C-alpha cells in the first residue's frame, strides 16, 4: 500500500483540475461528488497506509517519483516519505478534510455554479498542497507544499473577492506568511550550503554530527522557526489569522484551524533533531508560544464576532503546541495538533452552522437561545467547548494536560502561565457558548423566523467530529492511568533521536494526579463563573472601558503594526515614488532622452548641405588621423 501513497495527494490534484477547468459546465452535485470523493478516496488510502505504518517495527519508507532538482552534488528528488508522523498527518488532513468537504457541499450551496466549482477546486488544491507538505521527503518539497497552502489560503480568504475588506484580509495573510516563508527559505539555503542536502535523514545525520549548541544549527533552527511563526500565526506574525476569518467558514475550519496553521508544528516536530540540539532556540520557541497563547487568549475574552473568538482561540492553542515543542514534548504537540484539529474544526463548523442559520450574522450579541432551534449544533458545540476547555474525559483534557505536565517538568513559570491561559480558554469558550446558545434571542424577528437546524450534510460532520473530540484523547493517556500511551509508542521512532536528555526526570504519578486535579478543578470553577455571568446575557450596549476596551481592540496590535511598520513603509515608498522615481530614475531616463535630442539637434546643424563645409570637415578628419598616427 505504501507505494500507492502518491495517489493520496494526486487525487485531490485531479479533483482540482477537473473542477477548476470544468467550472463552467459541471453541475453542483457533480462538483461536490468529485471534490469530496477524491478526498474521501484519499482518506481510505491513508487509512490503509496508516494501518500498515502502525505495525511495530515499521521503518520510514521513501517513495521516489522523479528527480526534481539535480545540480552538482545537490540532488533533490521529488519523493514522498511515509513514516509515523506523516501517516498521522495524512489521516488528520484527509479525515477532517473529507468531513469539511461534505459540510461545504451544503454550506456553499447558495453560491453560483461557477463559484461553487471554484471553491471546491481551491479546496482540493489546498488539500493537495497540504499533503505535499507533510509527505515531502525533503525540505524543498515541504516548502513547495508550504507555498501551495499559503496560496490556497490567500485564494480562499479572498474567495468573495468583490468585497474589498476580504481582499485586504487575504493580502494581509499572504504578506504575513511571506515574511515567515522568507525565514524558512533562508533556513533551507543555509542547510544546502552547510549540509549539501535537504533530505530529512541526511540533514538530521549531519546535524547530529555537529553536536549541541552549534551556531549553524541554531541559525537554521531559528530561521525555520520564523517560517513556522508566519504559517502558524505566532507572535509577532499572528495578526493575519483573525482577519483570515473573512473566508468561508469551512475554509476557516480546514485551513485556519485544523491543518495549514499546524504546518509550523509539523515542521518543528519533523526537525526535532535540529531543535533538540539547539536549546536556546527551543527556549525561544517556548517563550513565543507562551506569549502567543496568553495574548491571543486575552484578546479572545472580549471579542464579539463568533469566528474571531474561535480564531484567537486557534492562535492561542497553536501557542500551546509551540510551548510543547519548546519544552521538548514533541509527542504532546502532535497530540494536541490532532485533538485540536477535531474540536476546533468542530467549533468552526458549528459556528458555520450558526452563521448559516442566522443568515450571515456573526455578532454573538445578536444571537442567543439558539439551543431551542438547533439542538444538534448546540450539543456538538457544547462538546467542542468542553473539549477545548479541558474537561476530564474529553480529548482536549488529555492533550492539554500532557503539555502542561511537560511544561511543569521543564519550567514552573511556563506551567503557571500556561495554566492561566487554559483558564482563560475555558472562560472565553463558555462565554461564547452561553451568549450564543442560552439566554434570550436578541436578533430580529425575521431572523428568528428563519432559524432552523442545518441539513444533514452539515450536522453529519458535526456529529462525527464531536465523537472524535470525545474519544480522540484516549490514544494518548497520561502515564498516571497505568495504561500504555498509544500515540507516544506510535511516534517513538520519529522522536527517537530527540532525547530529552536533561528532562529525563519523570513526574511521579501522584504529582501528575495533583496537576490534573488542579487544572480540572480550576477549569470547572471558571466555567461556572462564566455561566453565572453570561447565562442571561443582555446586550446593554455599554461601551467597554479600561482593560476591556484594550482587549476588545486586540491590544491595539494592528494599530501598532500600522504605525511602526505600515505607515513608515508607505511613507518610504511615497518618498521613493516622489523623489527617487520622479527626479532620480525618471530624471535620468528622460535626461538621456533629452540630451540625445538636444545633441542631435546640435549635430544636425553640421548637416548644412554645403559641400565646402563637408570637405573642410573631411580635411580636419584627415589631419586628426595623421596627427594620431604621427604622435601616438
Amino acid at each position, binding site marked *: 500500500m505504501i507505494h500507492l501513497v502518491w495517489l493520496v495527494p494526486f487525487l485531490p490534484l485531479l479533483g482540482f483540475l477537473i473542477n477548476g477547468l470544468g467550472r463552467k459546465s459541471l453541475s453542483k452535485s457533480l462538483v461536490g461528488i468529485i471534490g469530496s470523493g477524491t478526498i474521501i478516496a484519499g482518506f481510505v488510502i491513508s487509512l490503509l497506509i496508516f494501518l500498515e505504518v502502525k505495525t511495530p517495527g515499521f521503518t520510514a519508507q521513501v517513495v521516489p517519483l522523479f528527480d526534481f532538482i539535480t545540480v552538482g552534488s545537490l540532488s533533490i528528488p521529488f519523493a514522498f516519505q511515509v513514516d509515523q508522523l506523516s501517516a498521522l498527518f495524512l489521516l488528520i488532513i484527509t479525515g477532517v478534510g473529507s468531513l469539511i468537504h461534505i459540510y461545504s457541499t451544503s454550506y456553499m450551496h447558495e453560491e453560483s455554479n461557477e463559484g461553487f466549482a471554484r471553491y471546491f477546486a481551491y479546496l482540493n488544491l489546498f488539500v493537495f498542497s497540504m499533503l505535499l507538505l507533510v509527505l515531502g521527503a525533503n525540505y524543498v518539497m515541504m516548502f513547495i507544499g508550504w507555498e501551495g497552502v499559503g496560496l490556497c489560503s490567500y485564494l480562499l480568504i479572498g474567495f468573495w473577492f468583490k468585497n474589498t475588506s476580504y481582499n485586504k484580509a487575504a493580502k494581509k495573510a499572504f504578506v504575513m506568511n511571506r515574511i515567515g516563508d522568507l525565514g524558512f527559505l533562508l533556513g533551507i539555503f543555509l542547510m544546502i550550503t552547510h549540509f549539501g542536502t535537504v533530505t530529512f535523514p541526511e540533514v538530521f545525520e549531519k546535524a547530529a554530527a555537529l553536536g549541541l549548541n552549534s551556531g549553524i544549527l541554531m541559525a537554521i533552527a531559528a530561521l525555520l522557526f520564523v517560517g513556522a511563526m508566519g504559517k502558524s500565526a505566532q507572535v509577532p506574525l499572528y495578526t493575519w489569522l483573525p482577519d483570515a476569518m473573512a473566508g468561508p467558514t469551512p475554509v476557516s475550519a480546514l485551513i485556519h484551524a485544523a491543518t495549514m496553521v499546524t504546518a509550523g508544528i509539523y515542521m518543528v516536530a519533523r526537525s526535532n533533531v535540529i531543535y533538540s540540539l539547539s536549546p536556546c532556540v527551543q527556549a525561544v520557541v517556548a517563550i513565543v508560544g507562551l506569549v502567543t497563547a496568553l495574548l491571543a487568549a486575552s484578546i479572545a475574552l472580549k471579542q464579539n464576532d463568533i469566528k474571531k473568538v474561535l480564531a484567537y482561540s486557534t492562535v492561542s492553542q497553536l501557542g500551546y503546541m509551540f510551548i510543547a515543542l519548546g519544552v521538548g514534548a514533541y509527542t504532546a504537540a502532535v497530540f494536541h495538533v490532532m485533538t485540536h484539529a477535531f474540536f476546533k474544526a468542530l467549533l468552526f463548523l458549528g459556528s458555520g452552522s450558526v452563521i448559516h442559520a442566522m443568515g450571515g450574522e456573526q455578532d454573538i450579541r445578536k444571537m442567543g437561545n439558539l439551543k431551542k432551534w438547533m439542538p444538534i449544533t448546540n450539543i456538538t458545540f457544547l462538546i467542542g467547548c468542553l473539549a477545548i476547555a479541558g474537561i476530564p474525559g474529553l480529548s482536549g483534557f488529555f492533550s492539554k494536560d500532557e503539555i502542561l505536565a511537560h511544561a511543569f517538568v521543564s519550567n514552573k513559570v511556563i506551567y503557571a502561565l500556561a495554566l492561566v491561559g487554559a483558564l482563560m480558554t475555558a472562560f472565553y469558550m463558555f462565554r461564547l457558548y452561553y451568549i450564543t446558545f442560552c439566554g434570550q434571542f436578541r436578533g430580529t424577528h425575521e431572523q428568528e423566523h428563519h432559524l432552523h437546524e442545518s441539513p444533514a450534510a452539515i450536522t453529519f460532520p458535526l456529529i462525527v467530529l464531536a465523537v472524535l473530540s470525545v474519544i480522540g484523547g484516549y490514544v494518548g493517556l497520561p502515564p498516571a492511568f497505568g495504561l500504555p500511551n498509544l500515540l507516544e509508542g506510535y511516534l517513538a521512532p520519529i522522536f527517537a533521536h530527540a532525547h530529552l536528555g536533561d528532562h529525563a526526570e519523570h513526574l511521579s504519578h501522584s504529582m501528575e494526579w495533583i496537576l490534573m486535579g488542579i487544572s480540572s478543578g480550576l477549569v470547572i470553577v471558571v466555567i461556572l463563573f462564566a455561566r453565572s455571568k453570561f447565562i442571561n446575557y443582555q446586550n446593554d450596549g455599554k461601551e467597554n472601558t479600561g482593560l476591556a476596551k484594550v482587549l476588545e481592540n486586540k491590544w491595539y496590535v494592528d494599530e501598532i503594526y500600522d504605525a511602526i511598520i505600515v505607515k513608515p513603509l508607505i511613507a518610504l515608498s511615497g518618498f521613493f515614488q516622489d523623489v527617487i522615481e520622479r527626479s532620480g530614475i525618471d530624471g535620468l531616463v528622460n535626461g538621456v532622452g533629452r540630451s540625445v535630442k538636444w545633441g542631435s539637434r546640435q549635430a544636425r546643424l553640421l548637416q548644412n548641405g*554645403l*559641400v*565646402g563645409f563637408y570637405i573642410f570637415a573631411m580635411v580636419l578628419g584627415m589631419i586628426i588621423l595623421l596627427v594620431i598616427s604621427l604622435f601616438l
Partner: protein
Amino acid sequence: MPVQYYIFLSIALFCIGVMGVLIRRNAIIIFMCIELMLNAVNLLLVAFSKMWVDAGRTDAASAQLFVFFVMVVAAAEVTVGLAVIVMMYRNSHSVDINILNRLKN
C-alpha cells in the same frame, strides 16, 4: 639629389590644392584645384618611378603607367565635370557651390 625634394614639392602642391578647394566657392576653380592635386600625385609617382629605376627595379614603368591612367581618369572627369558645371550655370546662372546645398534636405 634626395627624393625628398620631390616628395615635399608634391606635398606642397597637394596642400595648396586642398586649400584652394576649401577657400574658393567657384566650382571651376575647385575643379582646377582638383587637377592640381592630381598632378601633385602624378609628380610623386614619377619621382618614385625614377627612384626605383635607380634602385635597379625592372617594374618601375608601372608607376609611369599609373600616371597615365590617372590622366585618363582626370580627362574623363573633366569632361563630365565641366558639362555638369555648364548645366548648373544654365539652371542657376551661378557657379557658386554654396547654391548646391540640396544635400541638406
